């Protein structure tokens, strides 16, 4: 007959308390393992969520059109940007605008030119695009207005600047209405971007936006870097993608030479990569749990030899082998359970500290990591104390009572 649970708890608890140094060391080992799993998976999952939110800050229901086409889908196409068989043109962009599923369309050119005002000048990234760009990217204006509503091919000499440009080139005076020199041309500042906007690879505070036709003149190129298309809603994304491919194929003599990727696809790819990464670091951290398990085995083996007379006594008092095994296993399980709970607290504290230091990283450990680390530590405690428990159960009571 096995002893009742609360008796086992009491008995094991007194044993754990009787050897505070070994209990503390064990708890720390197990806690570090569990905390490592929690913090590392929180980092991985935080990175995944960070990327996801960055991508949705690009805009909603976006379809991106790149020049060039390779058979690989998704991110692989980014590598093809430079090897372009046929350019995307403004006419291509205009041709795409005639579809009811498309809400906004913004062609995009990007380059770097020298901007100067008064005596100050510096190299600045310049984006050439259309008036729909602002809403498509969910950016805000701090003052003035955005690019005017005109035909795409009109090169109006106006520009919208980021707040950092404003501070560095115009210092104290208001930039609105001033003429800013970009390369060999002059542009009138009509607006300033708010600082809130964020986007991958682009610092909104440190750019200048001009009409796409002006940018083509400035960079002396007839082609576009890419075309951003916003579908009417989530369900329109697929037909829009299909429409773009068909339309551009027609315009390019039946050759498919553009890559069309949807925001969803990119997001899904990143999601997959970062989830895999999270599992991987979680797995690596779990190795420390296994190490803690081996430590448990060591400690329990020592405990068994330290307490030989006690085990001999329990046998003399009528405890069968199974009961001895149960008691040793229970003690180890209690040790690893306490360590796991301690690790949980430690891990959550670590995640909290991470969020304090890196506010933009949502470092929350996923639920599966919490559950898995608990389960693995309990399992390690169980598996690695089987050997010590069997050893205790097999002690000869006569020899054990004499401490041999």
């Amino acid at each position: 007959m096995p002893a009742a649970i609360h008796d086992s708890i009491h008995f094991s608890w007194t044993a754990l308390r009787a050897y505070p140094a070994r209990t503390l060391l064990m708890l720390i080992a197990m806690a570090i393992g569990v905390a490592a799993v929690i913090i590392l998976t929180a980092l991985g999952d935080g990175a995944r969520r960070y990327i996801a939110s960055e991508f949705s800050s690009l805009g909603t229901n976006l379809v991106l059109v790149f020049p060039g086409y390779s058979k690989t889908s998704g991110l692989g196409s980014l590598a093809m940007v430079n090897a372009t068989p046929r350019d995307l043109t403004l006419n291509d962009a205009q041709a795409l605008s005639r579809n009811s599923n498309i809400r906004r369309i913004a062609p995009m050119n990007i380059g770097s030119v020298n901007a100067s005002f008064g005596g100050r000048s510096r190299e600045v990234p310049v984006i050439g695009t259309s008036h729909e760009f602002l809403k498509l990217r969910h950016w805000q204006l701090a003052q003035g207005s955005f690019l005017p509503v005109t035909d795409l091919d009109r090169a109006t000499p106006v520009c919208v600047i980021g707040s950092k440009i404003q501070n560095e080139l115009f210092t104290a005076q208001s930039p609105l209405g001033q003429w800013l020199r970009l390369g060999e041309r002059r542009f009138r500042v009509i607006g300033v971007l708010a600082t809130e906007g964020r986007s991958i690879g682009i610092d909104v505070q440190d750019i200048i936006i001009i009409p796409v036709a002006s940018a083509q003149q400035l960079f002396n190129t007839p082609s576009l870097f890419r075309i951003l298309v916003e579908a009417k809603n989530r369900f329109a994304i697929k037909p829009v993608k299909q429409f773009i491919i068909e339309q551009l194929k027609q315009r390019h003599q039946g050759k498919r030479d553009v890559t069309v990727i949807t925001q969803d696809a990119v997001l899904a790819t990143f999601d997959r990569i970062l989830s895999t990464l999270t599992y991987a670091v979680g797995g690596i951290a779990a190795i420390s749990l296994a190490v803690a398990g081996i430590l448990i085995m060591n400690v329990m083996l020592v405990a068994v030899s330290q307490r030989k007379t006690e085990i001999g006594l329990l046998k003399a008092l009528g405890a069968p082998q199974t009961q001895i095994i149960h008691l040793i296993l229970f003690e180890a399980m209690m040790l690893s359970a306490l360590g796991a709970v301690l690790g949980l607290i430690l891990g959550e504290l670590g995640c909290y500290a991470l969020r304090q230091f890196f506010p933009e990283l949502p470092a929350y450990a996923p639920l599966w990591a919490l559950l898995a680390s608990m389960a693995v530590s309990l399992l390690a405690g169980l598996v690695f104390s089987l050997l010590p428990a069997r050893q205790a159960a097999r002690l000869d009571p006569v020899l054990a009572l004499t401490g041999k």
Partner: protein
Amino acid sequence: MIELSNIHRDFKVGDQSVHALDNINLSIHPGEYISIMGPSGSGKSTLLNLIGLLDSASKGTYLLNQQDVTVLHEREKAAIRSQTIGFVFQAFHLIPRLTAAENIELPLILAGIAPEQRQPRVQKAISDTGLSDRADHTPDQLSGGQRQRVAIARATIMQPKILLADEPTGNLDQKSGQDVIAILEQLNQQGISLIIVTHDAHIGLRAKRQIQMLDGRIQSDSHLNSNPGTSPGTSPPRQDQANASSHT
């Protein structure tokens, strides 16, 4: 109640075989008070462990309440130890981190008895041994005599039929030793079979039946003198027992 016939117990020491018990024949009835005496290495502790099912015979049969226990499994032997046999050791073997009351309670816990049934029995055992004001003390806060009284309470809490005491006074001063013997004898008067292994002739001679051992054999058994023929074996003269005192 206890029926040992042709019991041998051999230990392997290196490549040599040592006969700790050599053809033991012994019959013990309920309620007997027996002392087993003899020099170190004479096999008296081995005999006690064997009777208590902590050790098993290499050869021979052991009937306990008409049941052959030499063929029992480990679990069944443990159950018999739990229900029928109580042990008192020279070194007390109290668990140092448990209080006196918890040490006494231990056999009840191991036997799976519910807490509400355990408490009154533990309380009674504590007051019977006169340790009421020491119940919450750990063993290191108790004197030797008190520790052995706790150990006796623990050995008898399951109300066993047989109480086995291996040098119960070996670690005690004379006064405490006498107290412990008095408690044990009182238990015997209440019907428990008491078997004491001892070096001390003064204690050994108090027993109604005295067994002398030497080199794993029973040298004399006072019981045989009064009841000749119950068991085979030699019965040397009684004065041999006096020699035992020279070993203490």
